[in-house]
Every structure is written in C-alpha cells, then in structure tokens.
C-alpha cells in the first residue's frame, strides 16, 4: 500500500520535471524558430560583407565599341537579359518597397564596364561590378533609360547604343560589415584590457591576499555586486569618465571604440574575476604544496602550476565575457555611439551589431527581417567563438586531470 503511494508520487514528480524542462526547451526553440524564419530571407553573404551606405558612380563611355559581340555565358538564368554589345547581364529586382529596378548581375571580363571613366573626377576610372543597381542611363543617341523600365527593355536599348553620355549606378548598401568589424574590435580590445586585470585580481584575491582580511572580503563582495549592476549605469560611467579620458589621450571627440572597450571591460571584469577565482578554488592544495616542496617559489607555483589548472575556468570566463560584449547595447549607446559606419576608425563613433539592431528597430519603420538576420549573425558569431575557445581550452589543458 505504502510502496504504491510512493511510486505514484515518484511518477507524478518525474513527469512534472520532464514537462517543465520540455516547456523551457519549447520556448527556446520557438524563439530561435521565429528569428530564423524572419531573418533567413535577408541573410546572405552580401549582407555581411557589403557597406551600409550605397555609393553612386557617375561614369560615361565615348570610345568605340570593338564591335566584337560578347558571348552570353551559359551560367546566366532565363530571367537575365544579356547585352552582347556591352557584355553585361541585366535582371529585374525588387526593392524593400516592392518597386522594380534593374540589377547588373553579370559583367564580362572584357566588357567596357570594367573600366569606365568617372564623370566627376577626371582621370579616374571605375569598375562597374556585378550586383550594382542601374539607376539611370543617357545613351549617346539621347535616349534615356530609367531603372523602372525593366531589364528586358534595357538590354535592347544597350544593344542599340554605341556610346554612353551618362551612366548612374549604385552599390546596394544596407550591409552590416561595419558593425561586424566594430563588434570584433570591441571583443578583442575589451578582452585585451579586462583579461589580464581580471585574472591577476583573481590570483591576488585567492593566492596572495591574507585569508581572513576584512578588506579582501569586502572587495570580493563588491566584485560580486558589480555583476548585477544594470549596464546602462556602466554606460553612464563610460560617457562621464571614459569618453573624456580617451578624448584627452587620443584624437577622439565623443564616443569611440576605446571608451567602448573600457566600458565593456568594467562590465566583464567581475565576470572574469569571479569565474577565475572559482577555478582557483577547486584546485587541490596538494599541487601548490607539491610545487613548493620542489623548491619552486610562490610566483613559479602560481604561474606554472596553478594557472595551468585554471585555464579551463579562465577560458569559460572569456566565453561569458564575449557573450556579454556581443549582447551589450545599452552601455554602448553612450560609449561608442549609434552611428552606423562603413569605415571603422578606432577614435570615432560607430555601432556594434546589438546597437545596430536597436538602431533599425528604433526608427519609424522597424525592420524586423533585418533585425532577425543580424540576430542570426550574432548567434553564429557566438557559436563560432564558443567553438574556438573550447578548442583552445582542449589544446592548452592536459585532459583527464584529477
């Protein structure tokens, strides 16, 4: 009688635990599913590598076409209209608002498009490459072609013309290359600042500081407390202290990557200190004693033996820090700024991926798709860095320790 009651209780609790964990898993999958479903459409290598701002080229062609007509390559699909006169492939594309425009999707390696003189700057030649938008063309016979007229029509007009008075093309833009670079810069710079300070502080606290000192205990409490401080407060600190500081020692004026990295360093420092100290705590004293018993000094013991044991812990703190850095937005809005940039200069404002998401969502027309795409990229970066750090940890530490 009693046994069956206990068994029933057991089953109820077990199923409750499974249900709750499944529920948690479901929510996680749902979030990822939403992000992937929304963002995968816009996700492309171009998004990662292209500039945010589009560049417009204004060129012309007054030479004579070497009447050799170009061969249409077989790789072009049926929606591409080929101008054999100029050796270019054109196709219809639709912008974010659904309007049609002409996209150059193929340029022959001998095409005059590879080397067109710039109309605004004399003596400069532009390479009109694939994936540029054809904005407007004025041919030498004075006919005008607009992007809205469609690719089929355009290809015909190109084949009739033998010169171009005015060619306007533009790169697509809206890429996030600049923000990716800023984020990577921030990760590296922050870790370069915070890792040595954090690891040395942890070593001091655990290996050198007097064991029962009230001051050390207070310091430890303070570090633990800092882990829970909202990052916007660190952002204020960045704006109030680090921006003026970096502005005086560099040519920076306002938010910059140095002040951003310093702010982030303050944010991740408690993480690094606590998890390094945790790693030091679990190292059996035996190993310190064994090293000292071999006539090693305290410093030799700490750096040759203790740190070796602590490497996995230190690297996991690096992982946590990278997560914090990539995910941080509030603090960076002050410390680095929200200006989306293509050319990243350390002493100027720019924006990290997380702040980039904030920027595109904060406008009047929030772009969920692009935000989701960037989210996927952030997830991918975290995943890759995770993998790399785990790999390094495996390389650095001898497996199968006690």
């Amino acid at each position, binding site marked *: 009688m009693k046994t069956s009651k206990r068994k029933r209780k057991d089953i109820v609790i077990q199923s409750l635990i499974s249900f709750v964990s499944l529920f948690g898993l479901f929510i996680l999958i749902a979030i990822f599913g939403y992000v992937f479903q929304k963002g995968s459409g816009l996700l492309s290598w171009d998004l990662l590598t292209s500039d945010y701002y589009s560049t417009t080229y204004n060129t012309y062609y007054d030479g004579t076409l070497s009447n050799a007509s170009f061969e249409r390559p077989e790789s072009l699909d049926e929606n591409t209209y080929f101008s054999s006169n100029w050796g270019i492939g054109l196709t219809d594309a639709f912008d974010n608002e659904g309007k049609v425009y002409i996209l150059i999707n193929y340029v022959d390696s001998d095409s005059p498009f590879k080397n067109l003189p710039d109309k605004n700057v004399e003596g400069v030649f532009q390479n009109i490459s694939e994936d540029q938008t054809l904005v407007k063309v004025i041919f030498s016979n004075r006919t005008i072609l607009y992007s809205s007229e469609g690719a089929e029509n355009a290809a015909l007009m190109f084949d009739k013309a033998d010169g171009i008075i005015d060619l306007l093309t533009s790169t697509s833009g809206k890429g996030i290359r600049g923000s990716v670079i800023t984020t990577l810069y921030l990760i590296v710079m922050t870790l370069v600042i915070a890792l040595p300070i954090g690891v040395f502080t942890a070593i001091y606290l655990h290996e050198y500081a007097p*064991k*029962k000192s009230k001051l050390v205990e207070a310091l430890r409490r303070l570090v633990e407390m800092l882990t829970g401080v909202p990052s916007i407060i660190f952002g204020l600190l960045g704006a109030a202290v680090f921006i003026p500081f970096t502005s005086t020692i560099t040519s920076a004026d306002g938010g910059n990557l140095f002040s951003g990295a310093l702010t982030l360093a303050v944010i991740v420092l408690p993480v690094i200190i606590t998890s390094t100290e945790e790693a030091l705590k679990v190292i*059996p004293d*035996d*190993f*310190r*004693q*064994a*090293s*000292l*018993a*071999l*006539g*090693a*000094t305290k410093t*030799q013991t700490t750096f*040759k*033996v203790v740190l*070796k*044991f602590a490497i996995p812990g230190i690297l996991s703190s690096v992982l946590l820090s990278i997560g914090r850095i990539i995910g941080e937005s509030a603090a960076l809005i002050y410390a680095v700024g929200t200006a989306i940039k293509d050319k990243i200069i350390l002493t100027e404002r720019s924006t990290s991926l997380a702040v980039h998401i904030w920027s595109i969502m904060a406008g009047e027309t929030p772009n969920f798709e692009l935000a989701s795409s960037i989210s996927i990229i952030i997830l991918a970066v975290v995943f890759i860095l995770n993998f790399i750090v785990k790999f390094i940890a495996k390389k650095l*530490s*001898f*497996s*199968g*320790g*006690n």
Partner: protein
Amino acid sequence: MEQANNVFEIEKLNLFYGNKQALFDIDMQVPKNQVTALIGPSGCGKSTLLRSLNRMNDLIDNCKMDGLVKYEDQDIYNKVYDAINLRTKVGMVFQKPNPFPMSIFDNVAYGPRCQGVKDKKQLQEIVKRALINSALYDEVKDRLKESAYGLSGGQQQRLCIARTIAMSPDVILMDEPTSALDPIATAKIEELIQDLKKEYTIIIVTHNMQQAARISDNTAFFLMGYLVEFDKTDVIFGDPKEKKTEDYITGRFG
C-alpha cells in the same frame, strides 16, 4: 643510536595549530642514508613532524612552533635560513599521486627548471636519470611528451618520486606514499625505496606496520603528539621497551 651522521636533529620541538598542541617536546635524531619510518595512529602528529622538516608547515596560517630543528647542523627555522633552498635539499612525496597538468617530461623537469636550468641537453639528462632511478624509465620512455595523467596511479606516484629525485636532494620525505595504491604498485614503491636509500635519506610516514617493518631501518612510534619510542626497527618490532609501543604493534589499539 650513534651520534655521528645525523641528517636531522630535533630538540624540544613543540608545535601548535592555533590553540591545539600537535607535537610535545619531540627529541629525535634522523640518521643519514637510512630509512626511518614514523608510525602511530591517526592524528598522532607523525605527518606534522614530517612536514616540519621541510618547513611545509609554514604554509599553514595558524601554525606556531618552538624548539630546534637542525638540518646538517643548521637551524632551519632561523630567520635567515631560506625555506626554498631547504626544499631543494629535502624533497617530499605526498599521499595522493599529484603530477602536474603537464607532460611526463615537464613534470620531472619542473624542479630543475624552477632552479633556472635551461639547457635542453642537461634537462634531458636529468629527466632520464631521475626516471631510471625511480624505475619508471622503461615504462614511459616512448611517451615522455604525453600527459602525466595517462599513467596509472602507481606510475604517477613513481613519477612524483622521479620529480623529487630530479632535484638531487639529500633527503626524501614520504607522507604515506602508498596509501592510495594497490598492493602491486605498493610493492614496486617499496622496492624502489630500498634502492633509493643507498643515495638518499628517506623518512616515511606510514599507517601500514608491516610496511614499516619491511622497509625501514629505524622506526619512531608516535602517540597523541608524543614520541613514545624511537629505535632500530628490529628492536621496535621485536622487543620494544615501552608497553604502549608493544600494545600498538600487537594490534591491541590503533
């Protein structure tokens, strides 16, 4: 016991952990190039005494002591005496095998490297000799670059002995070196100790009385922090002078 050729001379050693006294008025001379076993029930102070010989007790915060410990006629607790220097001469092997998270080679080369030996050839020579002397060389010569954690417990303990030998010490302190090992590994270590005593003075703490009887030349029996009796092993196990020793040896308590 002959007065000449003593490595350690301990006079009136009292040792406290905080308010608790762990050793009472210990007087003892440890002869050179012999195996001296310290036996006694748990908590009798034998490990504490061992650790005071290479000043490992310094590392314990609330440990205080008075009395005299002389190594080669020098007071090792003298303020100017260098503990680090002492430990290169008085090595120690611990209860549990504790190789460092490094390769086998780096483990043995650790001590010499800390002393500033950089020359590769010299290090290789030292490591090889230490491994041969600890009867481990044949088993590990093909995998010196591999992690020390791939070795069995007994091999790891012999590696720890090799690590100590690599410093070419005069004395090796062993704190229950076989208590974590199986009988076969224990036999190997005991055999090794017999070889090592030709070159080194060995002081070994052991819980295993048969082990003390088998391998040691002298035995000291401790009880409640007092040194009850110290004599030739034959005497201690054959005809002890103290009643307490006899009771312990014959298994009446402990």
